[in-house]
């Protein structure tokens, strides 16, 4: 399956995402989930950045929190709402909000 997972929290309450398998897995960081893309904890990047090759972070939610698109890890593509619509319709067939 081609699964896009929306991650909306910095601290995940469960390990579901760690166990999910997909032929194509994408992670879309939104809301406080964008900290995975921008913030290092004790100098270490979020382990989620290693979980999937296709990573996106919502520009509006980055800027809302006083950060800039340039603050985002190079592995993550910065997208806007319109891009998210295209991503979920064109690149994945199932969606999950974690």
């Amino acid at each position, binding site marked *: 399956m081609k699964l896009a997972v*929306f991650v909306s929290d910095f601290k995940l309450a469960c390990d579901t995402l760690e166990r999910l398998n997909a032929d194509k897995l994408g992670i879309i960081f939104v809301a406080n989930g964008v900290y995975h893309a921008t913030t290092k904890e004790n100098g270490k990047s979020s382990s989620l950045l290693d979980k999937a090759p296709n990573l996106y972070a919502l520009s*509006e939610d980055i800027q809302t929190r006083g950060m800039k698109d340039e603050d985002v890890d190079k592995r993550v593509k910065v997208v806007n*709402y319109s891009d*998210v619509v295209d991503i979920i319709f064109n690149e994945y067939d199932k969606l*999950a*909000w974690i």
Partner: protein
Amino acid sequence: MATLTIGCFPGLVGNMTYDFALKLAEAAVNKGHKVNIWFSGNASGSVKAKQKHLKDYSTGEKHLRALIEKGVEICTCEACSIARGVDKTNAIEGIQWNAMHWYLAKIHASDRVLQIGGE
């Protein structure tokens, strides 16, 4: 044109997940897609009319009215809304009222489904 159905369960005020759901719906409908929104849980309280928009608080009413104007189908769980003191007489016009099977029926005809759980 494809169809996106969003199940939105978080409350209007208290976190910004609800805002995300509406913004995604707006972006999808602006690109010509069909969008359905199902409110359940605390989100069902957001269909009450005459919301006062204070700048420190998210507002739903004007966005919901705009989405309905653009053809987005929005339905609230009747039991969830009534449990929160909202009924058809004090709700935003154009919001549909139904039971959970409305959501499943819309899912049946959807290309993509985003279920956003509540707080």
